[in-house]
Structures are given as structure tokens and as C-alpha cells.
């Protein structure tokens, strides 16, 4: 393991600890919402996309019904389509391997892979972070589901602020290009503008238009 690979592992474990704490809070919330521990753990293993799990359980708990819960969760997860497309070059391999790797496509594994300087490290980062976070998410969920309300609120520890901070840190190397800066800023503004207007999950999709703004900048610069 060289220095770059050790750094990836260290950073992956750091974010994994935070993911474990959030997983525990998901377990507690889902238990409070009336899900049994087996179902809670199955959800974390099979869905493995935290935001949609919280959303679906919250909708059901508030009496919103199963269909809105599932549709809301799927809308929130639609961003994984472009994530998967952008990761395809680092996920080459046999069909079986690609099918298994796909379950590890999440926000953090995508951000870590894309922040690496080359494809070899991108691949290493994807698997290190994907596997670490998968394990932390399962263990955290199981502890929360079984321990119930004895676990405190992760917001008191600032854990909820750790995620945007981590994603921002991972994006910075990409933001050296004007194209990416314009795209990222436009996307962020569009998502915030859409937040009060559209149901959960869709503001992120609206932000895709930011990429078009970024490409327009690029084109106007080239003769």
C-alpha cells in the first residue's frame, strides 16, 4: 500500500465513522416508526442510500403512505444514474464484478473516486470507500435498530455537518477548472431555488442543468 492508498483508507475510515453514527440514528428512527430489526437491516443492505432510507421511513411514519415513500426515495436516488455513468471507466471488469460493484455506488464513493488524480487511484478509492462505508452503515444500522432510543442525537455531535464538508473537500481538486466551478455553483443555486418549490429529491435533478452552464463556458472559451 503506497502513501496515496493509505491516505484514501484513512479518509475513508474517518467518513465511515460518521456514516456508522448516522446509520445508528437511522436504525433508531426506523424502529420508532414501527419497522422490525430484520426489515431495517435488510433495507440498509439492499437500498444502501441513506437519504432515501430516511425519507421513505419518515413518509411512512407520518402516515404518508407506501407509494409516496417509494416514489420519493427513488426520485432522491435518481442521481445515481449519472454517478454510475461517470464511474463506469473506473469500474471496468467482468459483468459479475460490475453487478456487485454497482451496489457500492453512493455519494461518497463517487466523490472519492472522482477526486483522485488517475484511474488506478480512482478505482482504489471507489472500492476502499464503498466497502468501508457499506460495512459501517450495516453495523451502525444494526446497533441502532437493536439498541433503540439509548443512542443520542447525531446532530448534537455535528455529524450532519460532516457530510457536506467531506463532499466539499473532495470536490475542490475538480473545481480548478472554470467549467466545473460554473457547473457546481449553478447546480447548487438551482437546487436551493427549487427546494421550496419541488418535492424532496427533485431539486438535485434540477441541478443537472448546471452542467450545461459549465459546458457553455467551456465552449465559449474555445475558438
Amino acid at each position, binding site marked *: 500500500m503506497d502513501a496515496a492508498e493509505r491516505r484514501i483508507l484513512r479518509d475513508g475510515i474517518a467518513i465511515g465513522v460518521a456514516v456508522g453514527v448516522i446509520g445508528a440514528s437511522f436504525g433508531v428512527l426506523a424502529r420508532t416508526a414501527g*419497522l422490525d430489526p430484520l426489515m431495517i437491516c435488510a433495507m440498509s443492505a439492499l437500498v444502501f442510500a441513506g437519504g*432515501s432510507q430516511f425519507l421513505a421511513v419518515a413518509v411512512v411514519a407520518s402516515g404518508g403512505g*407506501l407509494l409516496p415513500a417509494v416514489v420519493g*426515495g427513488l426520485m432522491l436516488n435518481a442521481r445515481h444514474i449519472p454517478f454510475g455513468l461517470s464511474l463506469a471507466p473506473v469500474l471496468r471488469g467482468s459483468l459479475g464484478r460490475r453487478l456487485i460493484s*454497482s451496489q457500492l455506488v453512493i455519494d461518497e464513493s463517487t466523490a472519492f473516486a472522482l477526486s483522485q488524480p488517475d484511474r488506478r487511484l480512482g478505482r482504489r478509492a471507489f472500492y476502499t470507500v464503498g466497502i468501508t462505508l457499506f460495512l459501517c452503515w450495516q453495523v451502525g444500522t444494526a446497533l441502532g435498530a437493536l439498541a433503540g432510543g439509548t443512542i443520542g442525537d447525531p446532530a448534537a455531535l*455535528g455529524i450532519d*455537518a460532516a457530510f457536506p464538508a*467531506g463532499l*466539499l473537500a473532495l470536490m475542490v481538486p*475538480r473545481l480548478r477548472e472554470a467549467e466545473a466551478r460554473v457547473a457546481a455553483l449553478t447546480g447548487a443555486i438551482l437546487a436551493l431555488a427549487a427546494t421550496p418549490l419541488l418535492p424532496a429529491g427533485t431539486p438535485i435533478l434540477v441541478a443537472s442543468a448546471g452542467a450545461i452552464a459549465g459546458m457553455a463556458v467551456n465552449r465559449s472559451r474555445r475558438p
Partner: protein
Amino acid sequence: MTWSALLVLAAGTYAMKAAGPVALGNRALPPRAEAMFALLAVTLLAALVAVSTFADGRSLTLDARAGGLAAAAVAIRLKAPFVAVVAAAAATAALLRVAF
């Protein structure tokens, strides 16, 4: 929540995660398409940063998370390692919540 609802959410999510790796397979994309998907991913991650910092359900808020993100931005500016950036954000948000 029922098992069938859970399985539909899981299957749909997996299909979206796997669409790129399975459909593109080991074919090399044209460099322009590859750059476009990378740009799209960065854009969506930026939107995710904004929403997970400034949104609370469907309303926009300015709370301890914004303080955490500001601390992270300073740490990044100072070229702090990743772990320190994340820790600075969490500690700042936690302190702000204790203080106010």
C-alpha cells in the same frame, strides 16, 4: 413499511446505480462524453452539498450546518487534511448548537 415496498425501493435504486456500469460495460466512451458525465457528477455533488447544508425539508434555513461548512471551507483553504476538514465542520456545528 412493508417488504414489497422495501424491495421495490431497493430494486429501483439498484437499477439506477447499475445502469452506467452495466450498459457502458468495458467500452471506452468518447472523451467528450466521459468529461460530460464527470462534470454532471460534480454538479450533482455540489447541489447535494448545498441542499444538505441549507435545506430543512422543503424550507431553506441558515443553521449550525452552515457554520460547519464555513469552517470546512477555511480548513480547505489552509490545505488541512481531509480528516481535519470533516472534524472542523462537525466540531463547529456542535459548538454552535451548544452556544445557541
